[in-house]
Each structure stands twice: as structure tokens, then as C-alpha cells.
């Protein structure tokens, strides 16, 4: 297409706020060069994250079956696809996918956020009154980073262990109990999960729009799915520290 030159003062006054990439990367990387493509990647990586979170939560429910079950489950994770693959290979593969997904999700979030800022350099000078945009959708850019920070702490606390003085490799059950017995950690955990819930309440609905999954006859299910998914995940996750603090587990 011909890039039209400005033909009048009116037109000349409007300059693009986002630069187009100089070079088109080969498919599928070129998708990531566009905002709609980034949003699509966000949705896909969000789905991956949701899958992980769901498995993670269900796996952790083993906690209620006792230390042996949970620790056994942790071992089992290392042995996925064994003996086809050597031990831990599948786990590392999953960790790899999750890390890439997380990096892409966070990178696209920041780059879209920057783009949106450029799209409205001067904001409204009077008070906005939102009608449809809800609290969840407008706080995605805050709940996201909260999750990220929490994730870092969470890994340090329960995976690598340096944030948990009582950490002991392989003793998953004891580590969890030791961690949650510190009240501030439990509170942090609960708050972070509420943030995650808010994030998911919008995200798990929004991803259908981003992916172009839209059929008016079943669209009502999308909101229901998001609410249900959020409730299950947040409910499950929050139950762990509460269970520890109330002594049900431990």
C-alpha cells in the first residue's frame, strides 16, 4: 500500500504514535510484531499459565491426604514420561515452556501497556465515569506484576528454598507447613492469590475475545467459565495457608 502523504494541515497534525517495525520477521514471529498478535500470544500464554495453575492447585490438594501423598506426588512430577525419557526431562521441558510463556506474557503485557500510554499522551482532565470496564479489567496491569513478584518469592520460598529457613529438599509437605506457619507469609500468599483471582476473572474471559473464540449462542458461557475457574483456583489455593494456620494440616 502507498503510504499517503499528508494533504492538508488537518491531516499533517496527526502523526502515528506507534512506529511500524522496519523489517517484517518471518512467520510466526511477525505475529508478535503486531499488537493483535501480541494479545493473541498473551492469551495463549495465559492459557498455558492457567493450565499450570490448575494442575498445581489440584496437585497440592494432596496435602489433605497427608505428607506421604504430597511428597510422593512431588517425586512423581520428576518421573513424568519416565521411562521413555530420563527422569526430570519432562519436568524441565514443562519448566522451559512455562518460563518462555511467562517471559512472553510479561513482555507483551509491558509492550502493550507502553503502546496504550502512547495512544493517549494527555489523559482526561475531568473525572472519567466508566460503565463497562470493571475493576478487574482495569487492574490487569497491577495484578499482573503482583503475581510476578509473588511468583519470585514463591519460588525462592518453596522451590529453591533460600527464603525459607526451614527448607529441606524433597520434604515438600514440611516445607509448606513451615512456610505457612509464618503468618506474614500466609497473608502474602492469600493476598497474592486474591490478585491472581482478579487477574483471572478478567483474563479467563478476555482470552476468548483475543483468540477469536466467539459464538453468540454460547458466549454467555465465557463469563461463567471465568468466574468458575477463578473461584476454584483461588478457593483451592487459599485453603492451604488457612488449613496450616488452623492446624487442619500440619
Amino acid at each position, binding site marked *: 500500500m502507498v503510504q499517503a502523504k499528508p494533504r492538508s494541515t488537518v491531516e499533517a497534525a496527526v502523526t502515528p504514535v506507534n512506529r511500524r517495525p522496519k523489517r517484517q520477521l518471518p512467520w510466526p514471529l511477525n505475529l508478535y510484531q503486531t499488537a*493483535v498478535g501480541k494479545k493473541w500470544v498473551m492469551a495463549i500464554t495465559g492459557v498455558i499459565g492457567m493450565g499450570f495453575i490448575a494442575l498445581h492447585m489440584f496437585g497440592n490438594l494432596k496435602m489433605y491426604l497427608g505428607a506421604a501423598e504430597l511428597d510422593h506426588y512431588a517425586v512423581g512430577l520428576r518421573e513424568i514420561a519416565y521411562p521413555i525419557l530420563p527422569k526430570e526431562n519432562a519436568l524441565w521441558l514443562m519448566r522451559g515452556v512455562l518460563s518462555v510463556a511467562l517471559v512472553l506474557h510479561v513482555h507483551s503485557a509491558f509492550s502493550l501497556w507502553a503502546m496504550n500510554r502512547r495512544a493517549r499522551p494527555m489523559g482526561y482532565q475531568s473525572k472519567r465515569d466508566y460503565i463497562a470496564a470493571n475493576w478487574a479489567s482495569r487492574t490487569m496491569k497491577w495484578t499482573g506484576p503482583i503475581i510476578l513478584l509473588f511468583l519470585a518469592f514463591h519460588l525462592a520460598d518453596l522451590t529453591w528454598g533460600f527464603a525459607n529457613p526451614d527448607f529441606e529438599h524433597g520434604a515438600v509437605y514440611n516445607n509448606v507447613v513451615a512456610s505457612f506457619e509464618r503468618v506474614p507469609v500466609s497473608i502474602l500468599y492469600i493476598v497474592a492469590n486474591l490478585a491472581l483471582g482478579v487477574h483471572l476473572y478478567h483474563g479467563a474471559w478476555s482470552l476468548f475475545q483475543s483468540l*477469536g473464540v466467539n459464538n453468540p449462542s454460547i458466549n454467555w458461557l465465557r463469563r461463567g467459565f471465568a468466574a468458575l475457574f477463578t473461584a476454584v483456583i483461588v478457593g483451592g489455593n487459599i485453603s492451604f495457608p488457612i488449613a496450616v494456620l488452623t492446624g487442619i494440616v500440619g
Partner: protein
Amino acid sequence: MDLTLKVWRQDGPQARGRFETYPVQGISADMSFLEMLDIVNERLITEGVEPIQFEHDCREGICGSCGVMINGKAHGGHERTATCQLHMRTFKDGDTIVVEPWRAGAFPVIRDLVVNRSALDRIIEVGGFISVNTGSAPEANMLPIPKEVSDAAMDAAECIGCGACVAACPNGAAQLFTSAKLQHLNLLPQGQAERWQRTVAMVEKMEEYFGGCTNHGECQVACPKGISIDFISYMNRDFIKGKSLNRRLGGQGLAK
């Protein structure tokens, strides 16, 4: 009724703007919002104050010229109502009404409440059409189009290009406008030949000027024509397909 009007005044594109407060008396409930502004302007002229510049033309909700933020809501926030269709009976005696222009990087203020929306035309010129030269059209009834499809295309085609979707969007995104324009043509059989290049070209042009979509849904409720965000979803799908399909093989296989 008597009102207090707080209006954004800005002398030119480069000038600094500010809110000015004007008391307004004796407004009839049957007046339209723009007629109320007319009255204020008549009075300002007699007082030697330059009248408030605002955009308008048809005054029946079809040309898409009008459009301001009223109390923080695009077009005042009533369902399927453009600013010119808003009547004063929706306000109460004694109300304070704050009026501000659309804000977006692609919509620079020209003066007072008037903004420049020509970026929307830039999106159209890269693909918002079916390439058919005058004279080369086949007989109209050669191509039956299911009524449902035609109706859906019409739902999208009703967009009046007012820019309220951009104004209302927390991100300053023009997805609702672009998707309405796209899906009007992409749904129809006549539009199939250019469907994928149209989608890619228009979306990429849109992204040069506007923000991205977070699916807030704020545009849909601001839209005076009730355009649905379903169209945004279809646009996203068509865009990914348009980028990924091998068009030379009629969409079979992946893009090279």
C-alpha cells in the same frame, strides 16, 4: 432549568487548555444537548466571549460529527445515543455538566471541543473497501446472500465513525471502529477475495495510531450505534488467519 456548565476551552492545537465555568439559565427539557450549547454560544457572543467550538452537522445521530465527553462518559453514556440525540431532560435542575473533548494521541484537539479524527480515514484507505471499479459490477441478484449474513453485515455497517469507542477506551484503542468496518465487508461474499489482506492492512494501520485492546468492553456501551465487541473477536481471528494462511494456495497451508 438552570445548570452549571464546565467546558474545556483551548484556543488552538498548540495552546494550553483549561476548563471554564458558565452558568446556564432557562433551559427547556425538550432541548437537545447541542441546542443548549447553541444558547450558551448566543449568550457568549452577546457578552463578547468567543463561542465554544463544537462539531455537529446532521443532529440526528447519523453523520458521526458530534461527540464529546459529558460528565466523564462518551456521548453522555446513554444507550445508543449520540451527543446530538441527548436531550436535556436527562439532566436535573441544578446539575453541573462537565464537557471535555475526546482524548487520544490520534485525535489532537483542534479547538475547544473539536478534535481531528482523520486517523480513522487512514485506516479505511488501506483496505476498507471492495475493489470494484465503476462499471464492472455483475447483476445484483446474481449473488444471493443469506438474510442473516446480510443483516449481520448491516449491524457492523451502521458504525457512524464518531470515535466514541476510542474516546471511551481506557487504552485509546480503535478496535471497535476497525472491526465494524472490517466485518461489514468480511462477512459478505463480495468481500471474500480481499478478506485477508484487508484485515491485515487495516489492523496494522490502526496500530500505528491507536492503542491495543484489553477487552474492557467500554467501547461497546459508548457506541451510539450499539456495535458489538463480538466484531473485535472476529477481527482478531481474521487477523491471525490473514497473517498465517498461504493466500496463494487459497488459504491452504501456512504463509511462506
